[in-house]
């Protein structure tokens, strides 16, 4: 500071200083209001930009290319782990064969099971800078977030032209469409309601893997008296107990009524079976490890192949984990559907869609064709450890569990997973997860019921 500055502040009395301070305080809200007004004025920009893009209904996505050179394709996803990144690369290779010379920009955002990527995506879409296509869970996560906001182009023409509506199961098509329109191409299918068990522990105790809920209780009692944790449950990533509960809901409600829970919010209050499901979850947790808040789903799965726990209920990405850990399927571990859900397939699916205003729209459409093609799905899924959404897969490319799963997918009744974005919007998912994570620690059944009823208000 200059000498004058010091002089200046010495001259200033305390009263004067405070007055200036107050004046600043008064001036600020005015300034910020002005600023807010400016920002408010700028808000409509993304929406006014939208009509300059081809209106969703008119331009068919499969319209012949206008001949303008598109030399890039930007694909946004959170596939960064080994396996899934390899699968993505296989899809890129297929695309490059069809469109040589197009530079593919692999825009991945790692971490948080997609949470980080979704946050980045929202920023980009709001800023009017969408990628050409992005990974999104098929079903309500796409519809509730992006479709109702008017940010996606319907791609019914592609489904017809490519024949996808004939090779994908009808229930799946119903569950991923919105008002009769398709907005994304499912690339893969994972199954949520699976029970994984340690074969050696079961043989040592002379047990059969449980099929019904009652069998599960009997098996669990015997394992408990044998000193093995019957059910290994995680909780650190905050989706594990909610995941367990969706299998319980499916067991109680069955594949016909379970999807209704997410269309008719009143059921959470009026249907007596909710209480039944809560009691069942409570009993399941009474057979589970107490330290679940400190374990991820993978830590919980590790205990099963280590033999300190006997079973875990987790999606079929657990299979990939077991294989990576060197456990032999059929020798070290086995699988059955979660208790009481045999014949139902609780699905979740990664898909790609066409955002309005995609900068390289023609390439994006070609990309969607690759994603939906038989060769694309058969290239991607064996690497990712999931099954194709198409029912005409080349089974020889898949290993033992995936072949089993392909078979079940074709025959079982399909129901959408809520924890993994197929059945409900993200705001509901968060509230549902919160309720179950609180319950996992508190075991307060009335509180859980209250929180689930509150959460249902997010279902619109």
């Amino acid at each position, binding site marked *: 500071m200059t000498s004058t500055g010091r002089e200046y502040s010495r001259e200033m009395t*305390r009263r004067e200083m405070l007055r200036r301070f107050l004046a600043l305080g008064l001036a600020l809200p005015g*300034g*910020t209001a002005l600023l*807010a007004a400016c920002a408010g004025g700028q808000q409509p920009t993304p929406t006014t930009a939208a009509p300059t893009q081809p209106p969703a209904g008119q331009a068919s996505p499969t319209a012949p290319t206008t001949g303008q050179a598109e030399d890039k394709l930007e694909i946004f996803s959170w596939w960064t782990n080994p396996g899934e990144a390899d699968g993505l690369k296989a899809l890129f290779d297929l695309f490059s064969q069809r469109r040589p010379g197009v530079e593919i920009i692999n825009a991945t955002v790692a971490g948080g099971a997609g949470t980080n990527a979704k*946050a980045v995506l929202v920023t980009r*879409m709001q800023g009017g800078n969408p990628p050409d296509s992005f990974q999104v869970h098929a079903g309500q996560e796409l519809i509730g*977030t992006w479709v109702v906001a008017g940010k996606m182009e319907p791609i019914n023409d592609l489904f017809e032209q490519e024949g996808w509506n004939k090779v994908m199961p009808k229930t799946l098509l119903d569950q991923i469409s919105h008002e009769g329109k398709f907005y994304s191409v499912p690339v893969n299918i994972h199954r949520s309601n699976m029970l994984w068990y340690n074969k050696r522990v079961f043989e040592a105790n002379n047990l059969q893997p449980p099929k019904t809920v009652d069998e599960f209780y009997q098996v669990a009692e015997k394992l408990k008296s044998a000193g093995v944790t019957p059910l290994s449950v995680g909780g650190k990533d905050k989706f594990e107990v909610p995941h367990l509960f969706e299998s319980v809901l499916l067991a109680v409600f069955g594949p016909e009524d379970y999807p209704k829970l997410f269309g008719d919010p009143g059921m959470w209050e009026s249907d007596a079976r909710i209480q039944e499901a809560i009691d069942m979850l409570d009993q399941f947790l009474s057979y589970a490890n107490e*330290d*679940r808040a400190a374990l991820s789903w993978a830590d919980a799965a590790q205990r099963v192949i280590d033999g300190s726990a006997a079973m875990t209920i987790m999606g079929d990405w657990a299979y990939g984990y077991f294989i990576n850990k060197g456990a032999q399927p059929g020798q070290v571990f086995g699988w059955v559907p979660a208790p009481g859900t045999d014949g139902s397939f609780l699905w979740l699916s990664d898909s790609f869609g066409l955002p309005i205003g995609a900068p390289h729209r023609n390439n994006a459409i070609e990309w969607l064709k690759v994603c939906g093609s038989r060769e694309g799905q058969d290239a991607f899924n064996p690497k990712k450890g999931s099954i194709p959404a198409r029912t005409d897969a080349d089974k020889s490319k898949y290993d033992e569990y995936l072949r089993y799963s392909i078979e079940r997918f074709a025959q079982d009744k399909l129901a959408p997973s809520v924890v993994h974005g197929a059945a409900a919007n993200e705001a509901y998912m968060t509230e549902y997860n919160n309720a179950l994570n*609180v319950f996992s620690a508190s075991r307060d059944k009335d509180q859980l019921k209250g929180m689930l009823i509150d959460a249902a208000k997010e279902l619109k």
Partner: protein
Amino acid sequence: MTGKVIEEARPRPGVATRPMTARSRYRLVERLIPILMITPSIIAIAVFVYGFIGWTTVVSVSRWQGIVPDLSFAGFRNYAALLTSYRFQSDIRNTIVFTVFFLIGSLSIGLLLAVLLDSKVRGESFFRTVYLFPMALSFVVTGTVWQWLFTPGAPGQPTGLNLLFEQIGLPVFQTWSTVSHVWPGGGWKPEWLRVPFGVPLAMIPVIIAAIWQMSGFTMAMYLAGLRAIPDELREAARVDGASEWQVFRWITFPLLQPVTLSAVIVLGHISLKIFDLIMTQTGGGPGFATDVPGIFMYETTFKSNKYAEGAAVAIVMLLMVSVLIVPYLIWRLRTETER
């Protein structure tokens, strides 16, 4: 003032403008330069700090609860929804508990270490570095390591600290980080309060980790404060026959008051805005027993896309920190102007 105005208003025949003397031009420049120097930072702060605070306030009273902005005025319903929600009530309780125990722990351990180091021990600089070093780590590292330490394992197969307890033969098996129990819990509480009031046990490992990291920093502050106290004062007290404890209690401790205040401000604003430590150590679990507004704000805004509600959380956080900072700023302003 009035005299000057009249003087300036008086017509000056023959002279259009008063010729500027070299001295008055110098004075003008002298006054202008500091203003010009600070103008860019004032503008930047007005826009990027206060402007965005204003913008967040606007969002927090809007209906923007999805990815499409909707700035229509919703009144204070977002705040009302927050204050009645289980998670936010839990967050407020946790923040108070964390702040109180973190401050008490860091200040007392920091002061103790500083006094020990000030007693002219050999290798003082070595110990000073050792105690100060945890501060160099990121909260993310601290959170991850302490999470491993407090993961209890199963009875019979302990891990982390429990393994240590078993090895040294202590019959202790802590499961703090995996239970949502609140101590003492129960008892009477008002109708609107949905969470039990008390200390969540799962908070204890987090508080320990935070104290471990920041008490060295507090020590450094106290040590500087101790060194600033003239030896003569203490000597004089000793000559008057005061015991060492009396010297500390009646001479040293009162003179450390300004340091304590600064430490409370620095540590307090860390604890009220804590995010990274808790995110990595517990993720807010089990069952929101360690959740804090920062995590809630992040998840509401960027996972559920509920912008209005997230903005409301951000404003409540700002108010909480303001309660701590504003009195301090006013106090500083007063002492500076009085000086």
